[in-house]
């Protein structure tokens, strides 16, 4: 039982990191980033490639992948997303546009890596240690630790830095921001880049735990939505709690259902929450 709890907590760290990028982009730009799943997949493959080619340990590739993804995200924003009308009018269009990016990313992955499942095996992949009667794999612990650091960093960024405050301001009211001299467009680019980077990093982390293929991403996308819908936008605490709920539901569902079906629990949860939550998807929470 204990190991299930611990599993849930460790998994929650990954889910929180995964979901935060999605929530950030929606909270600030009001855009649903359907390319999110694709970026997670790209992160996984980037870590894989760096490991295969350069022997780089996946945890060390977090930083370079994040930086590359950040600039890729900014590029996507400036090249594509910027051209769409903001707000409700652009809703489905931005959805489809980012979905198209996802298709391209998938295709690239197929061409570069084939459609086979891949994993990253390091010297310590199979190692674990004991706490009481529970076995914990080093990987899961490391992923959790990294996730904690990232989330703490995000919280710090959003609450203590000028940039963070600018981001929160733009999320609340972009028009007033221009009046006050906040460069809204730059905040948009930065946020999109940051959200993309977070997705890629979640991909790297996920790659150390699971096997993956180019079709990877739809499930992760949906799980990210569940977390964002449950946890509200941008609030690190909210995201963390929601991630914990999702991870717990999944982990404990294994007691009742075959493993592949546990994902379905998350999806049903998503649809239920969407339908039962009046007034649309995301609440009006402020970033912080």
């Amino acid at each position: 039982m204990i190991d299930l709890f611990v599993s849930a907590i460790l998994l929650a760290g990954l889910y929180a990191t995964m979901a935060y990028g999605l929530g950030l982009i929606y909270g600030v730009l009001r855009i649903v980033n359907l390319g999110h799943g694709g970026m997670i997949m790209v992160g996984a493959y980037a870590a894989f490639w760096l490991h295969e080619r350069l022997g780089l340990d996946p945890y060390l590739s977090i930083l370079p992948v994040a930086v590359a993804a950040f600039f890729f995200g900014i590029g996507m924003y400036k090249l594509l997303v910027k051209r769409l009308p903001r707000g409700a009018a652009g809703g489905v269009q931005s959805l489809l546009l980012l979905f198209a990016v996802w298709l391209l990313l998938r295709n690239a992955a197929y061409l570069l890596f084939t459609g086979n499942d891949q994993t990253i095996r390091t010297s310590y992949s199979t190692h674990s240690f004991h706490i009481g009667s529970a076995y914990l794999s080093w990987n899961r612990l490391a992923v959790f630790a990294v996730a904690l650091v990232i989330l703490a960093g995000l919280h710090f960024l959003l609450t203590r830095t000028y940039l963070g405050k600018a981001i929160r301001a733009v999320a609340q009211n972009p028009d007033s921001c221009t009046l006050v001299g906040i460069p809204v467009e730059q905040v948009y680019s930065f946020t999109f880049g940051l959200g993309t980077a977070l997705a890629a990093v979640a991909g790297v982390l996920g790659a150390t735990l699971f096997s993956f293929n180019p079709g990877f991403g739809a499930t992760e996308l949906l799980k990210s939505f569940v977390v964002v819908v449950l946890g509200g936008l941008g609030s690190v605490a909210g995201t963390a709690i929601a991630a914990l709920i999702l991870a717990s539901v999944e982990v404990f569902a294994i007691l009742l259902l075959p493993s592949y079906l546990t994902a379905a629990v998350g999806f049903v949860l998503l649809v239920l929450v969407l339908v039962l939550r009046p007034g649309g998807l995301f609440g009006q929470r402020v970033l912080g």
Partner: protein
Amino acid sequence: MISLPPWAPRRIYLAGFAIVVALIALLPFIHDNYYWHNQITFTLLIVTAALAWNWLGGLLGQVSFGHAAMFGVGGFVAARLQMSAHFPMLIGWLGGGVIAGSYALIWGHPTLRLRGPYFSIATIGVGEATRLICTYWSWLTGGSSGLSIPVDIDLKHQLYWYALGLAVLALMASYALRKSPLGLSLLAIKSDVDAAADVGVSSSRLQDLVLFLSGLTMGICGGFYASYAGFIEPVDMFGFDRSISFVLMGVIGGIGTIAGPVLGAMVFVVLKESLLAYYPQLYLGLFGISLILVILFEPLGLVGLGMRVLRKPIGERP
């Protein structure tokens, strides 16, 4: 002559359409080629499915990324009805369709209250959840191994004309949904659902109607596909890739138009078929780029391009 409703197409267009249909129907007698016979059958089926998707995605403006759910439900129900309950093929299809349409109503009715992108996200969830749950229900789907539906050769040959019939019905329904007063209400809902209510449009009822019709047709297509392919399994039937294909056909062809899904479906089938041998996944990339181009530059997709080329006045709509 038969009297037609005021919004029906002009007689000359109807005549032209009838001629085209007759030509397609007679083609196998003129030049019988096994490969093309099947290709056209399959294409007509996909055209029907794309049209059905567009009723929800284009006319109502609610883009569904989970329509494979109904395709799969229809297919497996039809297969089971034929295999286990020994129903005749057409009844099987109809049964599959009705169940699929009802399923669409069940998840769609509450979900359609969500606007725009949020509905679309929910449909991804519905599609994937349906796939997983139905795979688990091996009594329905045979688990991940799927089901075989032996169809005798003669019947399979005749599927060609069944497909043609389905496609014609779907086209007629598309036209009716688009041009009739009902169609105006649907577009009003698409434009502004609250303002539509303010002028007397009962959005809930109309949305349910479109949901059911779309699901029904999708389900029938699934049943047809089961008979056509002779073997179906959950990943192919319910998969996200299949759902995506309908979105691509509809949007790239020309969302909301009548000809759009037809063009989109034809392009899709042809492209996938030509790439199958060497670069099977390349269709993703090609369609991805096309989708980007459509969204950024030509919202009405191929139909819009066609209109520009023919330089139709902006007032007229396809």
